[in-house]
């Protein structure tokens, strides 16, 4: 089904962080990639030379803070590149050339027992960018169609544990299903309806395993867990619809191709799996099938992304690997 195509060289290796691969796929242009290494983001653009972005320090930084994640957020009017770190949130124009906005987290005077960082990035509701934090709070930023006048519109406080990932609906949400899902360290998932004010529609409590990555498609939440399981939840009712013993170790990343419902999963066990989600509107049956497996020898996978909306191509990053591995149709 798939085979290894090309390998893109990164200036530095990727760090072991959840969802550590950002991809921007502009129509009829080659994709751009980003991977986090410690305090920097390595960018491989579709134009121009590779670029590196630094984490921004706070007012009295003793050392450069570590980045936790990076993602391109595609809104109707513009695309922004968002970086999260131990200090706050940085937003850039999509080629990384100009910083548009900076939001600093409240950093305690002395290092507290609980770490402080931002993590979890998603564009939502055609107008907002949501960013998670280690306190469990989700920051909702209102993004103007152009310019730097980004404002913090709301803070959602439903999670008690550090946010791991956030995902917006990529297909068509059934009525009442909500269009945003947020996940945290305890495995708790919250379903939201976005807007001027976000509304909590439902909460799926965790059951002892961290949810490190999450996607939302046609009202189906696909969540990847630290115990190697993938679970499918029905967003409207909060009920579990599928449980897969997918990986032998902690899942680090999921991605979804909206045109076909293909799901990609990557984990510490060196495996990348391609699955197919489907929803039968008549029977209301939700299914998941296994399509393809790739083993990235001696590598703990930390990022996986489809490079096209149908899921015919995908890219992979791994801890200590200075490359992005690209796969295409066999």
């Amino acid at each position, binding site marked *: 089904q798939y085979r290894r195509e090309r390998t893109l060289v990164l*200036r*530095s*290796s990727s*760090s*072991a*962080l959840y969802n550590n691969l950002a991809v921007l796929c502009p129509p009829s242009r080659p994709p751009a990639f980003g991977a986090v*290494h*410690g305090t920097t983001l390595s960018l491989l653009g579709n134009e121009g030379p590779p670029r590196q972005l630094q984490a921004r320090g706070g007012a009295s*930084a*003793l*050392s450069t803070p*570590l980045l936790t994640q990076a993602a391109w957020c595609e809104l109707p009017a513009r695309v922004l590149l968002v970086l999260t770190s*131990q200090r706050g949130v940085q937003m850039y124009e999509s080629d990384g050339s100009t910083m548009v906005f900076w939001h600093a987290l409240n950093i305690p005077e*002395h*290092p*507290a027992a*609980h*770490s402080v960082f931002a993590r979890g990035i998603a564009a939502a509701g055609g107008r907002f960018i949501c960013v998670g934090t280690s306190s469990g709070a989700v920051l909702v930023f209102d993004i103007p169609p152009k310019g730097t006048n980004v404002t913090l519109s709301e803070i959602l406080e439903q999670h008690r*544990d*550090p946010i*791991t990932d956030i995902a917006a609906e990529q297909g068509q949400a059934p009525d009442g299903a909500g269009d945003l899902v947020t996940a*945290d*360290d*305890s495995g708790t998932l919250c379903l939201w309806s976005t807007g001027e004010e976000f509304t909590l529609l439902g909460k799926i409590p965790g059951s*002892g395993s*961290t949810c490190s990555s999450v996607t939302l498609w046609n009202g189906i939440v696909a969540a990847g867990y*630290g*115990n*190697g*399981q993938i679970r499918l939840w*029905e967003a409207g009712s909060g*009920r*579990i*619809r*599928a*449980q*897969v*013993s997918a990986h*032998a*170790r*902690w899942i680090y990343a999921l991605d979804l191709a909206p045109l076909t419902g293909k799901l990609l999963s990557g984990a510490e*066990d*060196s*495996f990348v*799996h391609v699955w197919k989600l489907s929803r039968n509107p008549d029977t*209301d*049956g*939700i*299914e*998941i*099938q*296994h399509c393809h*497996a790739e*083993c990235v*020898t*001696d590598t*703990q996978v930390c990022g996986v992304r489809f490079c096209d909306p149908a899921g015919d191509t995908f890219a992979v990053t791994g*801890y*200590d690997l*200075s490359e992005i591995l690209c796969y295409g149709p066999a």
Partner: protein
Amino acid sequence: MSGRTLPLLFLNLGGEMLYILDQRLRAQSIPGEKARKGERRAVPAGSLRSRVMNDIISTMFNKKFMEELFKPQDLYSKKALRTVYDRLAHASIMRLNQASMDKLYDLMTMAFKYQVLLCPRPRDILLVTFNHLDAIKDFIHNSPGILNQVDETFRQLIETYNCLSDGEFQLIRQTLLIFFQDMHIRVSIFLKDKVQNSNGRFVLPISGPVPWGTEVPGLIRIFNHKGVEVKRAEFTTAGNYVTPQREGSFELYGDRVLKLGTNMYSVTRPVETHMAGSSKNLASQAKENIVPNPLAKEELNFLARLLGGLDIQKPGGGETGFRLNLFTTDEEEEHAAQTRPEELSYKVINIEATQEPGRRAELSRILGELEVAEPRPASAEKGEDLLALMDG
């Protein structure tokens, strides 16, 4: 990122250091210690090896040091941490040349990197730590005073870490992996055992027991909208996994089950490291050394407190120190010193002889300031208080 990482890093690296020193002390003939026929492996009191091990272990588990270590804080840079181990290795009458110290540190760090990578669950890093501590207790089982110190630390570990969630342990693990990133030094014992490839990367097996709490991959279960299971399907992959037998113990005493963190060295398996084989990643590693570290002053303050407070055994009267060589011959050690690639130099903050007069003056000033004859009343600076207590 996790402020709880340093104790685990320090104790596990320290544990590896002790394994290596113990092996080299047994292998190298030490002046004054004559092996007698039928001598038991257990070390009688008064022997040089046991003295060195006791000195280092008791320094490592110094009560005040441990208290400071367990405070939530960021990880030290590789430079700063290396200097702490330099000092620790010299806490007795044993001396190590720079080349041997470099090799020791390389071995320690690659060993712990391997253990962190191969831990089935992030929480198992704690079991690895317990394995190291169990072995350390065995080294000093004849010294009840030091044994007490180690047990105290053991209890503090249990108190601090047993209640952390899996998510918090994964954050600790991720913080450790950032620290070890881009280190690919080849260790001959790893190469021989086929746990490391010739390019310096570790072999990650896709077979064996799955972590405790994980299922063997392959099963898909489908539920209907009422939550009733309606279908099962299976998929297969190249992996060959089995269910684990039991979970390791997180108590003060118990079977840890996990072998990571136990002593893999023995007298008959000498350890070598290979410096050759540069990789693209060295560029980023070298950069870390060149960019001035604004944290350096902060770290020096803490180190200076440690240095001032530790009771260092200096060769006195008729007693002479001895030099431990981590290589097989002196010529090998000399050669290693000369051929170590620039980008792999630790650029250790050398206390005795430094080329930078500015830094030397700064260190002397700090050490001088912290010289306290008697415990001062509570108004004294935090660092000086600590020092005063150590001296007392």
